[in-house]
């Protein structure tokens, strides 16, 4: 859509929404949120940008094909799921927790990595779906 109002607004909304999405991701373990909603918000941010600036622009912003987020995210989730087997001889998916709480994030553990994987996969999948449709529309 050729409207500078939307375009300008979206330039500000994009970083804000992305920031918000990370916020939602990180707090998920303690308050409503988590990787899935976070990922959706991030995806929506890019979709908004695509509406305003055109798909090509958004793709340039992303630098890599959104589809690439999927294997990366999946790999992260997969690794955090099997790391207990590899490193601790514990069953699949067992939570591994750092002893000392980390600033900002609180107590850090494999669950967070797992959720990050979810976050990336959701971004990748949602964007792949929507971008593909827009391109072929």
């Amino acid at each position, binding site marked *: *859509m*050729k*409207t500078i*109002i*939307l375009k300008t*607004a979206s330039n*500000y*909304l994009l970083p*804000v929404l992305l920031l918000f999405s990370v916020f939602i991701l990180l707090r998920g373990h303690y308050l409503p949120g988590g990787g899935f909603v976070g990922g959706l918000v991030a995806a929506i941010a890019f979709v908004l940008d695509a509406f305003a600036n055109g798909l090509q622009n958004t793709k340039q912003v992303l630098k890599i094909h959104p589809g690439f987020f999927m294997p990366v995210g999946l790999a992260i989730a997969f690794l955090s799921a099997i790391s207990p087997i590899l490193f601790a001889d514990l069953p699949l998916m067992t939570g591994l927790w750092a002893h000392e709480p980390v600033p900002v994030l609180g107590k850090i553990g494999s669950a967070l990595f797992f959720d990050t994987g979810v976050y990336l996969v959701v971004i990748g999948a949602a964007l792949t779906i929507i971008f593909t449709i827009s391109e072929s529309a």
Partner: protein
Amino acid sequence: MTDVLIYIFATLGTLFALLAAIGIIRMPDTYLRISVNTKAATLGVGLLLGAAAVYFYDFSVTTRVQAIVIFILLTAPVGAHLIGRTSYFLGNKLWDGSVIDDLKDRYNKSTHELKSDPEQVEENNSKQDSKTDRNA
């Protein structure tokens, strides 16, 4: 003291929300409906959120409320603008009582370019009929 503030915020907010609701029911054309709802609702919701901020009286809640209000202030007018211009493309007529329509014939119907003065407009637009949602 805080309770009084909450009463006031909540009541005013609700009244503005109701105002927006009545407005969207009563206003005679699409543009007026958009116009009414954008502000009354924004103000109303802002006040209601304010009530929550006062109630919880907690910094993190207050900042969150601020964030929400800023989001709404940012997105509501942009949305109104978008849907308003789209309404014009679709050919939704202005209310009969409207006094002026400077936009008339200034959109190029195929490219959606918008001219700033009437001379630039190509004449072929005039023959195109207005369109409503054909699905309706």
